[in-house]
């Protein structure tokens, strides 16, 4: 069995007085896209924020390649090679596309140019709007920028939160194609409400309910299992 790149065990996270994550556990293996699924408020986004240290868990363990990262500050976690694309995309609207990339570039090494070429291959629109203010981009372009930005660094793991949110179906297809290409370069954890996108991209899945992981398996199993889909995702037929 291949060692997981990220292992989350029994984490509990509070937001104020609210006990949001009540025992979340999952493992992410190299070369795969792991999708976290569940209804609104199930704790998927909070899980990503807990991994990043933005909402530090009070209990449990998080190991990145066997190294515990729980308790580290977000900037320390980021520097260990985890890129994060938040739900609100988190792009800097007042900076240009170029400046957004330059801010994300923690250090320029020999491979930076290579990585930039890859980014331009996957997201050609970003090359076109290189000098434009990020705030003036369309929703889809903003999402591409948000996904591409962490790739300027040698990130081994990319956490993407709801990339399809607020996008037209045709743009979603484009984002799916882009993430497919990204799989070659980094391991991805995807939080997604859109089952079409989740099932198109995911290899493994974890179902969340009330702040806990309740089911896991391979995506093909979930696609076939109407009962699970109906119970936890509200999808029927």
């Amino acid at each position, binding site marked *: 069995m291949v060692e997981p790149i990220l292992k989350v065990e029994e984490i509990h996270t509070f937001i104020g007085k609210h006990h949001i994550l009540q025992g979340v556990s999952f493992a992410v293996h190299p070369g795969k896209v792991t999708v976290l699924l569940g209804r609104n408020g199930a704790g998927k986004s909070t899980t990503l924020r807990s991994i990043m240290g*933005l909402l530090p868990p009070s209990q449990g363990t998080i190991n990145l390649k066997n190294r515990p990262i729980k308790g580290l500050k*977000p900037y320390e976690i980021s520097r260990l090679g985890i890129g994060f694309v*938040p739900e609100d995309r*988190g792009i*800097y609207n*007042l*900076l240009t596309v170029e400046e957004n990339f330059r*801010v994300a570039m923690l250090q320029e090494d020999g491979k930076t140019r290579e990585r930039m070429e890859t980014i331009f291959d996957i997201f050609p629109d970003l090359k076109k709007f290189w000098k434009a203010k990020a705030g003036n981009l369309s929703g889809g372009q903003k999402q591409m920028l948000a996904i591409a930005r962490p790739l300027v*660094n040698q990130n081994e793991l990319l956490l993407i939160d709801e990339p399809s949110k607020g996008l037209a179906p045709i743009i979603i297809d484009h984002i799916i194609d882009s993430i497919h290409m990204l799989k070659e370069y980094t391991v991805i954890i995807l939080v997604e409400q859109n089952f079409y996108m989740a099932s198109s991209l995911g290899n493994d899945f974890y179902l969340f309910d009330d702040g806990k992981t309740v089911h896991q398996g391979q995506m093909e199993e979930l696609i076939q299992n109407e009962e699970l889909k109906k119970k936890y995702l509200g999808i029927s037929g």
Partner: protein
Amino acid sequence: MNPVQLFHLEERKNRFRSPSFFFRILLLAFFVFTPFMFRSFEVLDVILKIIIFSVLVASYDVILGYTGIVSLGHVLYFGIGSYFVGIFMGKLGLTSYGHLALAFLIAILISGVLSVLIGLFSLRIRAIFFAMVTLAFMEFTFILSSQLRSITGGDDGISFKLPGILAIDFSYGKFLGIEFTGRLISYYLILLLSLILFLLMLRFVHSPVGRVLQSIRDNEQRSTALGYRTYLFQVIASSFASCVAAVMGGCFVIWVRYVSPDSSLSVSIMLDVLLMVIVGGMGTLYGSIFGAAFLMVTRAFLPKLQVIIASLLPGIPLAIRLSERWLFYFGLLFIVIVYFFPKGIVGTAQEIFARRKSN
């Protein structure tokens, strides 16, 4: 050549052809030739104060407009610069050029260290805490400067003379019909220092550190998640800006040759700086020049409205009485500017040009 390199090449080519470049040259030429264009000391005084406050406001813009942290005590460092020069020259009688330079150096050092300490102490917690702490420090220093009479001269302040070529009675002779007095040399010295500091600030905000600061302003949590220890960057910005403010404080007293709590450390100066940055446009740096010019020119010339109206309309007492209310008109002007230039003069102009360009 990849597309990114092509973009940069194009940018470099266009840099010296853009209208904004010519405008900047024109502005600099205006400041350089002011003494030749306007013989009145009053005008020269207003122009030099515009220069000094432009740089002071720009330094405040570095922390407010570019970093997004609200300081209510930025004038504290301006006061430190003013007082060190004042105390060295006026109280200690250390009046050589070396002592003048030393006064500047100590003021920069103290301002830098103090702002680092305040930043480390308060920026880690909450941004609003920083605003309160800086205000408290400024008030404390204001009280200190008015109480420590033996050192600061109390509320009366310190008047002093400057050495050699900076002394008022010094004259170098005439050039292009203008007598080069110590006053004029001070003007050019301050202009040169201001220019250097302004260019330094431009370099700073466009450096990688400046970009991170702008990202923190836009979305601090995101910058943390990208791997930046954000408060350290905020401390760097605050300490850099405070050093610039200290130098400008020193320059201010070199010009007025007097320092007191009201002239260099009061909350009303802080409010002026805030007004200037709002009028000029936050996060633009160049806006500081327009903001300072607006406030300084209106403050200097609006009170004279009554005299002007009286000479233009001597037989209409109502017009003369209406012209007495210059503060009211100042308020109106401010409202008009804020209404028509919601992002400040330069901020709104930049937006309009960007929109035209994209169309």
